[in-house]
């Protein structure tokens, strides 16, 4: 039952979310812009892989996130997204917007570069601290977490401060 709730509920909520959006007039056409080649897919895949590996590491560490926490977190995220969609719907604005241009792609690439730097610095420092050349779950979670934190911090910095 717990597994069903953890996997089934998010899928169900996502389906409702996209069914609501894509049944609106014109939204489906706009998805062509969203899914087009102008997006920096490499960065997305990089972050997704990093996050997945980090979650694997957290599970390897034996840290169990209570089911109610993960479900409530997802439900809150869903409610926030849904409110955003409703507000745009009521304002008569398109829900799917073709956001992203070459500046946004440059910001993502620079953020990924900074994450790469942080990751490699951690790889460099680890043998000095651990005095061994193996990487246990704690250390690779730390390495990946540092990369992800630097990525998101850089992204917000470049997006809101530099631009």
């Amino acid at each position, binding site marked *: 039952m717990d597994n069903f709730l953890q996997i089934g509920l998010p899928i169900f909520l996502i389906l409702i979310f996209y069914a609501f959006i894509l049944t609106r007039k014109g939204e489906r056409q706009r998805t062509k812009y969203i899914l087009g080649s102008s997006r920096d897919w*490499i*960065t997305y*895949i*990089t972050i997704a*892989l*990093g996050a*997945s*590996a980090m979650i*694997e*590491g957290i599970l*390897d560490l034996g840290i169990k996130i209570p089911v109610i926490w993960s479900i409530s977190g997802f439900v809150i995220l869903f409610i926030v997204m849904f409110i955003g969609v409703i507000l745009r719907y009521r304002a008569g604005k398109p829900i799917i917007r073709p956001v992203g241009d070459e500046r946004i792609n*440059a910001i*993502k*690439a*620079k953020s*990924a*570069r*900074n*994450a*790469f*730097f942080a*990751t*490699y*610095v951690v*790889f*460099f*420092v*680890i*043998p*000095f601290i651990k*005095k061994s*050349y*193996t*990487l*246990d*779950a704690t250390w*690779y979670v730390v390495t*990946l977490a540092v*990369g992800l934190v630097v990525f998101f911090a850089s992204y917000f910095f470049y997006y809101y401060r530099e631009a």
Partner: protein
Amino acid sequence: MIYQILYFAAVVVLVISLLLITLLRKKQPRLSTKYWDFISIAAMFFGGFAFLSLLYHDVNLGQAPGDTITKIMLIVFPVVMIVFMIMYLVLFFWKGGINSRVNDDERTEFAHTKSARNALLATNLALFIYLLDAETLSRSALLVVLFCGYFVYFVSTFFYYYFKV
């Protein structure tokens, strides 16, 4: 411990010295390095030192590296570096040089930035694959992870710098 601290300090000093020498040379004004992406270059320095210390540490101690991957890497890494050097020279004289068709500008910086991004993708992908069925990354796995990042960085840099611009 003291040797490790000295090694760490030496690496940092070497990197900073190279940076300062490059930037402060009289015949090489700041302008010519204006479009270098120093963050990705520094990342490659740190990654390179981590990789080399992983690869050659036991060899320097007189202990033969045990596993097959390390033995393969001991041959593959120098070969790949030589191939990259030859490629660089070929491309430099073919497409670069004094009458360069590829002058340094913002695109140069962006080529390095995108290469670093691709290298992070390779690193994370290798980590993800290894961690699917292992809870600890062995030394040889770490070697492969770092090598993937290094390899993709160089290939991407050549691709973006000489063929994409």
